[in-house]
């Protein structure tokens, strides 16, 4: 056990986490240089494109240190977004130490600090690493000073490197061995293994990534999932090298995978503890939370005849995304679809992108909503996340909406703008502290409905990227909410209805009308766009009729060009939805979904 090291890399976005992970893998000699695909750990296209990690990946690196001993280094990659902070906490719970990455040119940033706190909460050894020292703009000394003064760590102990050129990577590997403690745990104890990730493999079923704390497990063992409450037989255990490689046994201190004939990821919950069925651990690894969906949106195929394809795609997608929940839904404007629940807005966006790219689906998604509790006058209670089912206001006694406790960290110069943002979003009971000089931490209670509505983007904007944001659920509180409908030429576009706080109804309705006006192609007739609460119009705008669209000449007999243009446009029209006699393109729905609130 003393020759094992379990660690993560934590960093601000763009500070070079994935690149460093790649270098460490190469440094360990695990992957052939020639076959090396940059950013090994970010395997999904979307991850590579956006430069963020969505699904964490893990890799075991054999490394022969200066003392001549070969160590087993387990790098546990973590997702990089607040939607997945629970996954991050489970990954960190599986480590003894972290590399805290700081960009030599940009210095310490808000997220660096937030990550540091997270690591400290798990009592991890922290090794500061100054990256990108090859940059012209690198200020290594300034960076070390910041690590001293702002993070309260020893700046002189920071390892300097360039993940891009590979400079300093051997020193990092040495530091992992010498500074991060080996795991503790008892091999002879009852089995206790923490699930920190799971993904689906078409041939093997669910691959569960675990960190073993006590005991050991091997093929043939009967294992119990302590939270899930079900029992399975182990088919295979192994390590990520980085490809799955079976091994005899996983023991206390090890990081690896378990395959046990489970067919869907949704059965396996991150944070659950595995133990032996006939020799059970007394208690599970603490910190398990059932990931609950908090943001809801309906998804429809752009073309109604693609519904069957969507059903198939969702089933496939679900195999690899345990957090997604969905059920059938339907809309007058959009036909048959599904109501889906997500962990947050990013989760929703990733879902949309993956379905479109990997499964080739053209989707329309409705405005995201939270789940309200509606107390009816007749004493019944209704849990509702779909505006479509919002009851007649006269039958409602009161409505409760979910509140979160947000923790926002930012440099003090943004105090004014962050305060304003929180007030605008109906923040309550704001408290603030100075965890380190020059930086403020806000604790504020916010309605979740205001947060899912581009709060994170706005925070990034008003703090010029320096603000970080994390949250946890509190409770449901009374809220004065109404249902706003959007009408196009007097026809209700049910897919655009939303539940919103009364004070903000007009503004939201105006925004949606304006955005629709921008996105709707001019039609051959006038189109009126209205926002309404019940029968009362609260917003209104009009799109003038199309001027002249017949331009291409049709002389000299070149008809082919015109026909091909029409064929192409007709194909694009499949992405339009009819409401009354108005064609609404998919991008209009998407744009309304993303409307910002300036």
């Amino acid at each position, binding site marked *: 056990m003393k020759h094992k090291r379990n660690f993560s890399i934590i960093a601000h976005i763009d500070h070079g986490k994935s690149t460093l992970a790649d270098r460490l893998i190469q440094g360990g000699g695990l992957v052939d240089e020639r076959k090396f695909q940059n950013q090994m750990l970010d395997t999904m296209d979307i991850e590579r494109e956006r430069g963020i990690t969505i699904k964490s990946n893990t890799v075991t690196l054999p490394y022969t240190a200066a003392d001549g001993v070969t160590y087993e280094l387990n790098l546990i990659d973590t997702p990089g977004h607040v939607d997945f902070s629970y996954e991050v906490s489970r990954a960190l719970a599986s480590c003894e130490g972290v590399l805290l990455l700081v960009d030599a040119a940009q210095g310490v940033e808000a997220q660096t600090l937030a990550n540091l706190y997270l690591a400290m909460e798990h009592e991890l050894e922290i090794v500061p690493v100054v990256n990108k020292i090859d940059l012209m703009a690198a200020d290594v000394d300034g960076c070390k000073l910041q690590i001293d003064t702002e993070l309260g760590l020893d700046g002189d102990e920071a390892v300097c490197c360039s993940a891009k050129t590979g400079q300093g990577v051997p020193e990092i590997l040495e530091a992992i061995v010498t500074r991060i403690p080996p795991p503790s745990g008892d091999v002879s104890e009852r089995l206790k293994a923490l699930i920190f990730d799971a993904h689906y493999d078409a041939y093997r079923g669910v691959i569960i990534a675990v960190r073993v704390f006590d005991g050991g497990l091997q093929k043939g063992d009967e294992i119990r999932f302590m939270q899930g409450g079900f029992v399975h037989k182990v088919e295979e255990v192994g390590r990520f090298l980085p490809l799955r490689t079976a091994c005899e046994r996983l023991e206390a201190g090890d990081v690896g995978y378990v395959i046990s004939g489970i067919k869907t990821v949704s059965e396996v919950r991150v944070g659950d503890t595995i133990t032996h069925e006939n020799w059970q651990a007394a208690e599970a690894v603490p910190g398990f939370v059932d990931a609950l969906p908090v943001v809801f949106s309906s998804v429809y195929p752009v073309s109604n005849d693609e519904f069957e394809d969507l059903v198939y795609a969702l089933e496939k997608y679900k195999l690899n995304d345990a957090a997604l929940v969905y059920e059938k839904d339907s809309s007058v404007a959009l036909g048959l679809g599904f109501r889906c629940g997500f962990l947050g807005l990013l989760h929703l966006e990733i879902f949309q992108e993956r379905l479109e790219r990997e499964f080739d689906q053209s989707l329309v998604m409705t405005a995201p909503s939270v789940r309200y509790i509606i107390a009816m006058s007749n004493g019944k209670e209704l849990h509702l996340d779909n505006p479509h089912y919002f009851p007649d206001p006269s039958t409602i006694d009161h409505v409760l909406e979910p509140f979160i406790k947000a923790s926002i960290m930012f440099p003090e110069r943004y105090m004014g703008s962050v305060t304003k943002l929180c007030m605008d979003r109906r923040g309550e009971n704001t408290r603030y502290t100075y965890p380190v000089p020059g930086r403020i931490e806000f604790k504020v209670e916010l309605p979740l409905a205001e947060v899912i509505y581009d709060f994170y983007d706005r925070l990034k904007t008003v703090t010029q990227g320096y603000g970080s944001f994390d949250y946890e659920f509190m409770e449901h509180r009374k809220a004065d909410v109404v249902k706003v409908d959007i009408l196009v030429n007097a026809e209700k576009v049910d897919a655009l209805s939303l539940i919103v706080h009364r004070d903000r109804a007009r503004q939201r309705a105006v925004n949606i009308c304006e955005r629709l006006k921008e996105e709707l192609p001019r039609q051959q007739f006038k189109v009126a766009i209205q926002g309404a609460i019940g029968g009362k119009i609260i917003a209104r705008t009009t799109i003038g009729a199309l001027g002249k669209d*017949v331009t291409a000449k*049709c002389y*000299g*007999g070149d008809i*082919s060009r015109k026909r091909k243009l029409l064929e192409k*446009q007709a194909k694009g029209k499949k992405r339009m939805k009819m409401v*009354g006699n108005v064609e609404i393109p998919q991008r209009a729905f998407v744009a309304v979904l993303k409307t910002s609130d300036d």
Partner: protein
Amino acid sequence: MLTQDLERPKTPPGLYIHVPFCVSRCSYCAFSSSTRLDLRDLWLEGMAREVELRARTWDGFDTVYLGGGTPSILGVERLVRLVRGLEPLGIVPGASWTLEVNPDDCSRELLWGARVLGFDRVSIGGQSLDDRALRFMGRRHDASAVEQALHRAREAGFEDISLDLIYALPGQSPGHWRRQIEAALRLGPTHLSCYELTVEPGTPLATAVDQGRVVLPDDDQRRDLFLVGAEQLEAAGWDHYEVSSFARTAALRARHNMKYWAHVPYLGLGPAAHSFDGFFRWWNDGSIRQWADRLARDEAPIEVEETLDAEALRLERLTLGFRQVGGVPVADLRGPPVHLRAALDDGLLVRRGERVFPTRLGFLVADGLALRFA
């Protein structure tokens, strides 16, 4: 394919001859044309070969159209050689023969010659009767040359004279366009083609627009200009039978162009010329040399050939039908019934029996209508 589909439509085909030469290129033009006038004889040799090639399968043409480029650039002597060479194609007696001419090179001699050869219609590329507008478009003639061309054509015995005009010029007001039409009517043409100035990619005009040096009228302004022109001509009793085409009487419509829009077969000869035989469309190599070389090897000088299936033909009927008085069979319309109802209610279409016909407002949005019912 069903045998009935294989029968050629009975209407006689049209013959188009592309004369791909110009003295200089106009700033807006993207038509296939060369300023290499030395290739004219090579082109004539090629034409003789292509006539011979096509005469094996085509005959009975009742319209002939010499377009370009600038057909008048050929001069009388080459024109005689060309027309004599068309004999194997079996052009029927009484066919309509149109010659496109440019105001700057339609000499008395050429017009008289054309008349003698059997041409009964000239189409004059006047484009404008405003010298400033002509300069902007890169035309080599002035307004008085346009007047003179009409005068000479009439002198030479042409009774059917068409004049091209271009509108939607930068800053053009409805009043200016109205005065242009008035001036044109005073010259006594029997047919007017009023083309909106369109930006074709790769032209000097496109570059100027991209760089912001030229600002063209917007959507609403173009709509106004179109309506001003159409209303004025209809008020004068003219027949607005296609988006851009007006005839003094319905009998004076351009018979050849109508074939393109009504799915009647036509044969195009010359570089880049397009042909349609009812089931296939093809177009010739655009390079004069390659076109001539391939013909010299007794090879069809086709660049691309397309087979049209029923669906392609339907889309074409939509594309073509909403831009002219011929209209579209109701059976060709797709999409929810509310589309048709709305188009009728909005006055874009009128329905007579199992066909719908575009109104003047319908012409304006012909492309949108085609898409709506695709």
